[in-house]
């Protein structure tokens, strides 16, 4: 069972998408796993042959439990296997350690790095031992108690409050649409699914609360902003879109995403994760895109290799990502791979957004809505479309000067949209 965040403790196997004997390629979806984030496609990290199923659909197992075995390519077959079709060469290994092997191949995999999750899988109640005992003594059902402790843990004080009938300490108010249809994902045998979507949403809210609280508590944020003239970029985009059919049109946001990814070369330390006491700079840019879910809450999913893909490719990728996120069908790598996040409140939103860094990342870029404003150029006054770009970054890792260079690089890239 892959961990999709260090706080995830268990997941339910929904279905096998491959069967023993199948030839597997790195990146293939082998199984579906249900967590409170929705049904996640579990990918394999090695070419090989599906050897044996260890966990049956409908079973809930702790993280780390091998789900199946894979014979890694190059190993002798244990049992006769149909000759594999000539496989294309495997993509080169990046050398980056991927979090959490989804399945246990017969060859040992590198230990996945553990880092605190953005999204907590609350298969288990996060409650202090003392609070658990107190809850039993006072007859309080701790599952009904809002935790206010570290990372949302339920403390003695929470139990005492609940026993006294008081509300939980004030939390961030979250408007939750009262009722809506369950997600498109097929319900599994997991009992948790029957508890309804509201539960899942509450838990997601709590995990967001935990991740964001942790971020604000642990990460010394600094904030920068710059206003960028999008005249050149929007003129180019309008020209492009004018000659394209609707399904090929690009959103202005794609230019911003691509620019944010490319600008990383000016300040690579912003594309990194903080591992307890040190920063690990990532070689590839997997932009995390904050996707708000229609039913409330949000997920941050990786748009892989953002800097090297074409705008069209990225557009397709983002469309696919958004659709699947909203359907509750995400891939494990998308949840765990992002290296820097971009958030935007959309074109009907606000002038500027100041992000909260998504741990263990060290920076978040925000784009406000694109608006027309008076703009001075060479002593003349013009109406131009502009956008306010912001950066919230971890001061342990970078300084304002570097952050400023990064925003400036985004600005310069957007002045030359052909290059994006």
């Amino acid at each position: 069972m892959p961990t999709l965040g260090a706080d995830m403790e268990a997941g339910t196997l929904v279905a096998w998408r491959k069967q023993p004997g199948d030839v597997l390629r790195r990146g293939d979806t082998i199984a579906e796993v249900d967590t409170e984030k929705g049904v996640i496609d579990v990918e394999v990290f090695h070419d090989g042959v599906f050897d044996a199923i260890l966990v049956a659909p409908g079973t809930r197992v702790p993280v780390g439990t091998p789900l199946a075995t894979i014979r890694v390519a190059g190993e002798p077959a244990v049992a006769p296997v149909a000759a594999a079709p000539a496989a294309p060469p495997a993509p080169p290994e990046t050398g980056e350690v991927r979090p959490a092997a989804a399945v246990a191949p017969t060859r040992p995999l590198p230990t996945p790095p553990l880092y605190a999750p953005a999204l907590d899988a609350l298969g288990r109640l996060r409650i202090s031992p003392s609070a658990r005992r107190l809850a039993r003594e006072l007859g309080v059902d701790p599952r009904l108690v809002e935790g206010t402790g570290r990372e949302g843990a339920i403390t003695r004080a929470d139990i005492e409050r609940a026993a006294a009938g008081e509300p939980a300490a004030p939390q961030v108010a979250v408007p939750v649409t009262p009722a809506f249809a369950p997600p498109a994902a097929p319900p599994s045998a997991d009992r948790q699914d029957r508890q309804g979507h509201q539960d899942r949403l509450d838990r997601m809210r709590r995990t967001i609360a935990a991740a964001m609280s942790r971020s604000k508590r642990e990460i010394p944020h600094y904030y920068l902003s710059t206003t960028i003239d999008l005249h050149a970029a929007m003129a180019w985009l309008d020209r492009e879109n004018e000659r394209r059919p609707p399904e090929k049109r690009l959103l202005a946001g794609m230019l911003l995403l691509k620019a944010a990814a490319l600008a990383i070369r000016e300040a690579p330390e912003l594309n990194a994760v903080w591992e307890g006491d040190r920063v690990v700079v990532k070689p590839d840019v997997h932009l995390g895109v904050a996707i708000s879910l229609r039913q409330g809450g949000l997920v941050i999913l990786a748009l892989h290799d953002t800097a090297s893909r074409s705008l069209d490719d990225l557009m397709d990728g983002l469309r696919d990502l958004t659709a699947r996120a909203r359907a509750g069908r995400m891939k494990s790598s998308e949840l765990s791979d992002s290296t820097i996040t971009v958030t935007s409140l959309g074109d009907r939103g606000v002038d500027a957004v100041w992000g909260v860094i998504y741990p263990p990342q060290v920076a978040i870029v925000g784009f406000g809505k694109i608006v027309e404003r008076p703009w001075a150029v060479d002593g003349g006054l013009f109406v131009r479309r502009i956008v306010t770009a912001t950066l919230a970054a971890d001061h342990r890792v970078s300084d304002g000067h570097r952050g400023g260079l990064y925003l400036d690089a985004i600005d310069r890239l957007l002045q030359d949209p052909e290059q994006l």
Partner: protein
Amino acid sequence: MSDEVKIRQTVLEILGGIAPEADLAALEPDANFRRELDLDSMDFQNFVIRLCKALAVHVPDRDAAQLTSLKRCIDYLR
């Protein structure tokens, strides 16, 4: 089926697919559904794509931004 009815039905169907939780029966003809249904730019572009496909029409990019209410859609497309 008149064009108007067909357009209205198509628009509502597409919107229902994008925002399954919404109460579309309550949607006023003049209401800005981008705002009412909280459609972001990706949602809206998906709406335009599906609308063009369903009605077999071409909507230029500069016009697409106008299609924000039932009434405007009907006015523009019929």
